[in-house]
């Protein structure tokens, strides 16, 4: 059994990515990973808060890390944005004694302090590096050998880093897909931007970036895309219809969280994986999984 402090983040807890939260917890349980949710965590502030008040943004993340520091475990989050917002506090505190003093002066107003000792991790890193590919492979119960999957990393799970994989040509998910018995397709744009939260104020800009990603995945033979980030999933899945309208394309490619694909391969009850929350129907993916035997 492995133990971590769990920071779900707003999207996975009550927002657009509850299927990610559900499936991450179900997969963690199957892999003997125990995730203890941090009590009374607050929003990480994401990039927008950092664009309005930089000290406040550091303090939002630092409060969470201060609470986690008392537990002494690594903090794990499934959200790429939460991951870098928490992680960068450690970098800034280490690099600048002045910033560390200011953050702690603000934290003191709430009776807290943070020494910078908490390691922040993405849940993909936990599953593939702490649990490992072999252990993952040993849990596979459904045959996915007919399924072609494009691994979409997006940006913040690998950048700015230094993290657990290459910042521009990561390989973690290709190996994961193979361990699950499915086929990873080439995906040259796998670590390029989907437009992120610009989809709200600058929809056209984000739709253009998302179009390029969908086109790249489909033209390389992918039947579904897996993601590691709540917002990437929103742009690729929920906005896929808008992309089709704007670019007169006809994409119908399901976009799953990587944990949903893991859960599917493990034979976890589909209801616990939140497939019904996909806007683009994942039925053809589900139809390609069979219990007839292992695909590995």
């Amino acid at each position, binding site marked *: 059994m492995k133990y971590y402090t769990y920071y779900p983040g707003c999207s996975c807890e*009550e927002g657009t990515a509850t299927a990610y939260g559900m499936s991450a917890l179900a997969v963690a349980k199957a892999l003997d990973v125990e995730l203890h949710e941090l009590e009374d965590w607050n929003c990480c502030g*994401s990039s927008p808060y950092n664009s309005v008040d*930089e000290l406040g943004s550091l303090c939002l993340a630092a409060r969470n890390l201060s609470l986690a520091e008392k537990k002494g475990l690594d903090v794990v989050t499934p959200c790429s944005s939460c991951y870098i917002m928490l992680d960068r506090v450690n970098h800034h505190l280490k690099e600048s004694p002045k*910033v560390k003093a200011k953050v702690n002066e603000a934290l003191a*107003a*709430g009776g807290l302090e943070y020494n910078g000792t908490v390691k922040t991790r993405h849940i993909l890193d936990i599953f593939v590096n702490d649990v490992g590919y072999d252990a993952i492979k040993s849990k596979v119960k459904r045959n996915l050998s007919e399924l072609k999957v494009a691994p979409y990393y997006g*940006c*913040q799970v690998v950048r700015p880093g230094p993290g657990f994989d290459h910042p521009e040509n990561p390989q973690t998910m290709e190996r994961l897909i193979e361990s699950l018995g499915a086929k990873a397709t080439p995906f040259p744009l796998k670590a390029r931007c989907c437009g992120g939260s610009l989809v709200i104020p600058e929809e056209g800009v984000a739709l253009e970036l998302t179009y390029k990603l969908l086109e790249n995945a489909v033209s390389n033979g992918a039947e579904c895309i897996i993601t590691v980030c709540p917002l990437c999933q929103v742009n690729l899945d929920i906005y896929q219809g808008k992309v089709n309208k704007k670019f007169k394309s006809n994409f119908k490619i399901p976009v799953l969280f990587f944990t949903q694909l893991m859960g599917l391969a493990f034979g976890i009850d589909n209801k616990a994986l939140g497939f*019904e929350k996909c806007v683009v129907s994942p039925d053809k993916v589900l139809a390609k999984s069979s219990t007839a035997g292992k695909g590995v």
Partner: protein
Amino acid sequence: MEPKEKTGATFVDEICSIPGGEEIRLCIQCGTCTGSCPNADKMQYAPRQLFAMARAGMRDEVLSSNSMWYCASCYLCTVRCPRDIKPTDLMHVLECLASRHGLSTKKNKTPAMYETFSNLVYGTGGMPEMGLMLRYYLKTNPFKAMGMIPTAFAMIRHGRISLKARKLKPEAQRQLKAILDKAKELGGA
């Protein structure tokens, strides 16, 4: 040499005083940031030019431009910069300075979205995504929300919208507010 303000600090000094801003002085104008940026073509001044202008002390032109508001925080420039400047952080520093001095562009809606987002986080400690969308559209262009109706229906149909917002315990909420108020009082990092 750009004129110094009353405090004796130049615009470059101001940028350097914020975490992430320090390295602007190392820029060699190679243009790797611009070449890596997915949105450089949308910006009034592409990243390389924006940083040159900042170093030349063109404070108002830089802070009132739309450039940094097109940064999607993809960090591609950051991993590629040969001088380890972290241009993404620099973009955030310029956004903060624009917000602080009331110079954020009105022509783009991104500053308004970020402000709405931040106010919600400050007020609730969480990010109620539905609340964000509603407030943002009411604040900027309620008619634009019409175009979102089919998307909203698809989201409701697939259970992607949660109307119940996460609430912190009252004491945790008070603690967070005390911390954020103190951070504001300290006036930046």
